[in-house]
């Protein structure tokens, strides 16, 4: 039996999404073309845009389809910096405020902007649960003029939900717009872009069972004039390139399917996750559950296993047919201790032992019990393998 507990990496495509995707792909027509085929494709595209806008509480004009979450985040952050410079002159100082526990799609953009555009990076503190420290945010915003604040809506590794309403209140008081990376939260939380009051929000389709290579930047109609990263036609607001009508349709259907199961399945998902946590901590009490215990994504369980390396644990779980993740990225194929855990103040040797198990609404009790049944063997062997001697023979 294969157990898939890596839904935060990518979530399998439901049958209804596959069917809608295939059907939409059978239409011959570029959505920008004026003929019948083009009009049919455009109709699908705009229908999908409206449906997605409805699902996330935005206006259709605010939904910009992208190639995924990474492009959406890049557009939002680079776009904000460049829009500011266009308005105030190329030499106008720019600054982005974020925690160090953001996804690499955010951290790497800020690093690049820092090197390329001399954009300042104002670091906001996080607590030991991976939640943004609001006092630190207020302090950072008081220190210098910030161009944009960027925050996850929920942390993709440790699952902690960020206090977005408070982040927006504090930032608004300083007159600073907010971008939220909602990639990990999409499909697990009800989102209302308008009520949130953020300027932009990044989304990805494949985390909710849509296709890889499809995402969206939800960009407030009142935002600065954010321009396309790649130029060539401006087929959409803030984006050039042929529009992917089938991808947009599949994304819309995936979101709707997910919303329907979420209505019924949320309590069950939380109960399964808690059953998994209790079961694993019961057989391996030395493990530490990370992230906020109260305000977290329903399908996310994150543990550190003392004395183990995360990639070794993954191998041992994989041997049992269990698909999991360390949650953190590899640098050049080399496993790294999670930057999120390090930002939370977890010591490096503990951070090495990270393991993220992400469930979704399709996860069953039998699957959870299977993971629990093999976990003590996995940890025992992982510890043995982790105790590699340090000195020369």
């Amino acid at each position, binding site marked *: 039996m294969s157990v898939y507990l890596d839904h935060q990496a990518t979530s399998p495509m439901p049958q209804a999404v596959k069917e809608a995707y295939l059907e939409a792909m059978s239409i011959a027509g570029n959505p920008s073309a004026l003929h019948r085929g083009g009009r049919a494709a455009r109709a699908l595209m705009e229908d999908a845009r409206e449906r997605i806008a409805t699902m996330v509480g935005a206006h259709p004009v605010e939904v910009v389809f992208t190639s995924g979450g990474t492009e959406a985040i890049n557009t939002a952050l680079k776009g904000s910096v460049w829009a500011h410079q266009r308005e105030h002159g190329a030499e106008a100082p720019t600054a982005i405020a974020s925690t160090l526990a953001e996804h690499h799609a955010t951290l790497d953009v800020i690093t690049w902007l820092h090197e390329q555009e001399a954009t300042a990076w104002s670091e906001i503190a996080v607590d030991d649960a991976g939640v943004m420290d609001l006092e630190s945010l207020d302090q950072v915003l008081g220190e210098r003029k910030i161009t944009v604040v960027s925050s996850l809506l929920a942390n993709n590794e440790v699952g902690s939900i960020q206090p977005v309403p408070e982040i927006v209140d504090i930032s608004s008081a300083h007159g600073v717009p907010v971008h939220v990376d909602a990639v990990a939260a999409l499909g697990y939380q009800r989102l209302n872009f308008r009520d949130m009051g953020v300027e932009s929000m990044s989304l990805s389709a494949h985390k909710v069972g849509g296709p890889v290579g499809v995402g969206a930047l939800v960009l407030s109609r009142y935002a600065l004039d954010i321009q396309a990263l790649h130029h060539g036609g401006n087929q959409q607001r803030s984006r050039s390139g042929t529009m992917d009508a089938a991808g947009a349709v599949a994304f819309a259907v995936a979101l709707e399917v997910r919303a329907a199961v979420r209505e019924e399945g949320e309590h069950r998902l939380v109960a399964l996750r808690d059953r998994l946590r209790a079961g694993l901590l019961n057989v391996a009490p030395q493990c530490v559950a990370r992230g906020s215990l109260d305000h977290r994504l329903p399908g996310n369980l994150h543990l550190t296993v003392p004395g183990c390396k995360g*990639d070794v644990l993954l*191998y*041992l779980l994989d041997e049992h047919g269990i698909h999991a993740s360390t949650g953190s990225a590899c640098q050049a*194929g080399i496993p790294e201790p999670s930057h999120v855990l390090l930002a939370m103040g977890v010591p490096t040797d503990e951070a090495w032992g990270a393991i993220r198990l992400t469930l979704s609404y399709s996860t069953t009790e039998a699957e959870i019990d299977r993971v629990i049944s093999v976990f003590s063997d996995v940890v025992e062997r992982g510890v*043995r393998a982790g105790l*590699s001697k340090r000195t020369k023979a």
Partner: protein
Amino acid sequence: MSGGVDSAVAAARAVDAGHDVVGVHLALSRAPGTLRTGSRGCCTIEDSMDARRVADMLEIPFYVWDFSERFAEDVVQDFIDEYREGRTPNPCMRCNQHIKFDAVMERGLALGFDAIATGHYAAVVEGPEGKELHRAATWAKDQSYVLGVLTTEQLEHCYFPLGSTPSKEEVRNEAAQRGFFVAQKPDSHDICFIPDGDTRGWLADRVGAEEGQVLDSSGEVVGSHQGAHAFTVGQRKGLQLGYPASDGKPRFVLEVRPTTNEVVVGPKEELALSELAGAAMSFAGPDPVRSGYAQAIAGNEFGCEEFECHVQVRAHSDPVPARAKVTDGEMVILLDAPLLGVSPGQSAVIYVGTRVVGQCTIDRTVSALAPAHA
């Protein structure tokens, strides 16, 4: 799985043999290059992708294990320290000794694996006293020398699927038949952690390069140099002494003295050695006493009487006849005929026939010109 053709075919053969195989690529640097350049290096991201691609084709799991810290300490720093001491180390042997067949094997065994399979050309043979390490079927590709550091215990868990392959060409053909893109990938040469191949420049940056004196064996100054570490015993080229020796014969490096930053030169015959010895030794498989090659010496912690063997001092040099013994905690190798240009730091690997018996790191040599055992 380095990403090269040998480990790719070794993995494929292990899978074909019905084993439960997992591919492991070693990250030996924290800052690997993106692309392989020329035939140097083995540790770029491209190499790791090549290895992963083969593992995917074989439908086996694949992991990158990060041993960069241990590699930096036990191989790279050892290499620098040895040169600083005026010795000539073999970093590939240190890597086999401390990383591949120690750290990797340790983790592998702890995870429940029985053996580590590599693409080395060498053979493990079941002998009367347990497993023995032998030369590969092909003399030209034989890599038993760099495996000479394996211990009896490590040998129990070694598996070399390429050991019986008649030629490298055959391995490349097999890789091509299996559809591996790496079939024609060039062999890697040189030292993997010095990607541009400029060992002298690399060492100069780390050991420092100060001008020093070149002396002849009587102690007379015959020239100067730009850093003693750049010289190796037996070296002839690059001395730049400007004028010939009084006897008109070419001069060779006889000795490197790092503490005084001196290089000693002399005629070729002064390079001749009659004896090599080293205290850091190991035995691959049954020791010479248990193998019946030698008689035990009573009273020593471990010692043995002389036995006939061949000794090889470089990966690609010819083995020469000798007698070896272990006495007073030292392996002593008495050469039947003088051997030229061997430097402390090199490993002397002892063979009996095709079998690797053991090795020592040379830390003492005796000149063939000096009175024997003076």
